[in-house]
């Protein structure tokens, strides 16, 4: 039975371009307090455009209604559980939004004199310190804009260190359960990629790894806990194997929500890792971004961090550009500062103990869901789950229903689907991460929905295969979108 949602009026809304009327506007500029200039005479006639063809022309209220109507077509964490595995969709505290808009922070120009930017630098320094403490690593850079950008930064540093030692080496090892960003990143740093098989418990196969670690290997990119939500129990041994051959270990910290306050990568042999501040540290996903991909390094990689770096000059902060071994910049300025403010606010609200408590609660919620769902869905690996649990659609596939169908049916029950068909090593994966911010009531509703769907699969598989039935928009034809790509509006001829 569907308990969580009912029918609801939803407004239709054309595109902005279709509702524009010539001459409408939604802005007001103050009168010019200097003489106007003739654009054609100061820029040259050939440099002045006629008009921006078909650009929107609507009133302020029409604009507001437009975007408000569109917003009602979205699902969001503010509406309910968003159990995307590996994405850590937790509550986004609103005080974080408020403090990020503090006038003196939001309007700080990156080139304003350092004496007039001490507040921003303090915030950056405070977050670097907190993340060093959480990861147990020697230093942190907050420059990367996102997780994949952090991976890129980390692998560049590994390469720089190995080059300094005389041999950059040729390849990066990546477990077959890894996110696609890992191999894509290795390629961008000029490495070839070799996949390492997982064993029957969903962990890196030690023997396969041992065979693969040769003098050609620059390092391993490992996610821990990995993408099946299982802690790599041999992590120390794995790091040792790599280090013995002069190679390095990169940890993808996408799943750090399982470890904060419980285990520190710096203590178990990791050389470099990234943190997704938009996952573990609660900054909002915003429909796809922004994020921030803080990178933490062991002592040995510190000289290679991207610049500039903060330094103390007397009782002031200053930017240090004199970094001879640095890999250089990975982006302009200092990082996604507005995201950093939000992450620091999250750390402050929790404190050391609260951060650890959040981790335990995340583990509790994931294991609770696992216990409720295991009688109905096939758990992919028996090993203990951490912050997420991964099932396969084996039982449902016998009825011709696949993970993607179950996901679409979940929508009818008022939930966002879990992560579908990932990791690739699990046939028909359902990857579920509830996070610590969900109540028992919401988890129970979700489990009820999943169980109800399992029963529907038995009794009426067609109902599931054709879902969703309750949404404004039924299934979307992705094949047509890809065969004849239309990626912008054009005025009908």
């Amino acid at each position, binding site marked *: 039975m569907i308990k969580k949602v009912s029918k609801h009026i939803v407004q239709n809304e054309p595109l902005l371009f279709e509702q524009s009327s010539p001459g409408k506007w939604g802005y007001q500029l103050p009168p010019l307090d200097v003489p106007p200039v003739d654009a054609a005479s100061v820029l040259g006639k050939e440099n002045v455009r006629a008009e921006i063809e078909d650009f929107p022309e609507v009133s302020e209220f029409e604009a507001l209604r437009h975007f408000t109507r569109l917003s009602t077509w979205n699902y969001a964490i503010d509406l309910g559980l968003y159990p995307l595995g590996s994405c850590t969709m937790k509550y986004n505290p609103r005080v974080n939004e408020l403090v990020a808009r503090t006038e003196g922070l939001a309007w700080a120009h990156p080139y304003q004199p350092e004496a007039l930017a001490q507040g921003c630098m303090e915030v950056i320094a405070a977050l670097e310190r907190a993340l060093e403490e959480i990861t147990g690593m020697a230093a942190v850079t907050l420059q990367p804009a996102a997780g994949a950008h952090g991976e890129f930064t980390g692998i560049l540093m590994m390469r720089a260190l190995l080059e300094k030692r005389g041999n950059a080496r040729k390849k990066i090892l990546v477990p077959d359960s890894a996110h696609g960003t890992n191999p894509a990143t290795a390629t961008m740093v000029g490495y070839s990629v070799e996949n390492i098989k997982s064993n029957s418990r969903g962990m890196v196969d030690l023997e396969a790894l041992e065979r693969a670690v040769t003098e050609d290997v620059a390092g391993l990119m490992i996610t821990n806990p990995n993408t099946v939500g299982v802690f790599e129990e041999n992590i120390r041994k794995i790091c040792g194997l790599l280090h013995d051959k002069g190679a390095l270990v990169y940890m993808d910290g996408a799943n750090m929500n399982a470890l904060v306050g419980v285990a520190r990568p710096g203590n178990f042999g990791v050389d470099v890792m990234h943190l997704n501040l938009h996952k573990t540290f609660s900054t909002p996903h915003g429909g796809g971004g922004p994020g921030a991909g803080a990178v933490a390094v062991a002592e040995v990689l510190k000289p290679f961090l991207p610049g500039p770096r903060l330094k103390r000059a007397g009782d002031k902060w200053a930017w240090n550009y004199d970094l001879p071994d640095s890999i250089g910049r990975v982006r302009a300025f200092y990082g996604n500062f507005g995201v950093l403010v939000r992450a620091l606010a999250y750390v402050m609200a929790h404190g050391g103990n609260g951060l650890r408590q959040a981790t335990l609660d995340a583990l509790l919620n994931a294991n609770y869901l696992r216990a409720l769902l295991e009688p109905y869905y096939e758990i992919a690996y028996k090993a203990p789950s951490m912050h997420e649990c991964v099932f396969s659609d084996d039982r449902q596939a016998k009825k011709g229903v696949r993970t993607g169908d179950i996901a679409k049916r979940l929508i009818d029950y008022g939930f966002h689907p879990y992560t579908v*068909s990932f990791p690739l090593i699990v046939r028909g994966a359902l990857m579920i991460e509830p996070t610590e911010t969900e109540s028992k009531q919401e988890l129970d509703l979700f489990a009820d929905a999943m169980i109800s769907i399992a029963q529907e699969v038995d009794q009426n598989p067609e109902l599931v295969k054709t879902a969703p039935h309750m949404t404004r928009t039924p299934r979307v034809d*992705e*094949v047509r979108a*890809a*065969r004849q790509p239309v990626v912008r509006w054009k005025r009908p001829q």
Partner: protein
Amino acid sequence: MSYPANYQYTKEHEWVLVDGAGGTIGITDHAQHELGDIVFVDLPKVGTTITKGQTFGSVESVKAVSDIYAPVSGEVTEINEALSKAPEKLNEDPHGAAWLIKVKLANASEAKDLLSAADYEKYVGAE
């Protein structure tokens, strides 16, 4: 769909029809079925040299990309232009109208060690 007996097949799911010094290459019905709705076909330019066992193009569905391996070596003499406008033809007629490329064979004897239709059918049955 049946597998034409006059074609020869690879374990990577390509077929080749050898006709004297020339060959026509495509992907098998099994391959198109595994991929699902095909949305894009990437083919080499005429004049390109392809080498047996190496990739010469790819076929894409919405959520997967599959490399195409050359069953024989040779020089591309013609590509099936119709597929760029209508990739769905590969789902409809992979052994006929939706051939991919034609080549001038570098070495006609290369096709000898490919699978027969019967062997290929046995192979995909077991896979």
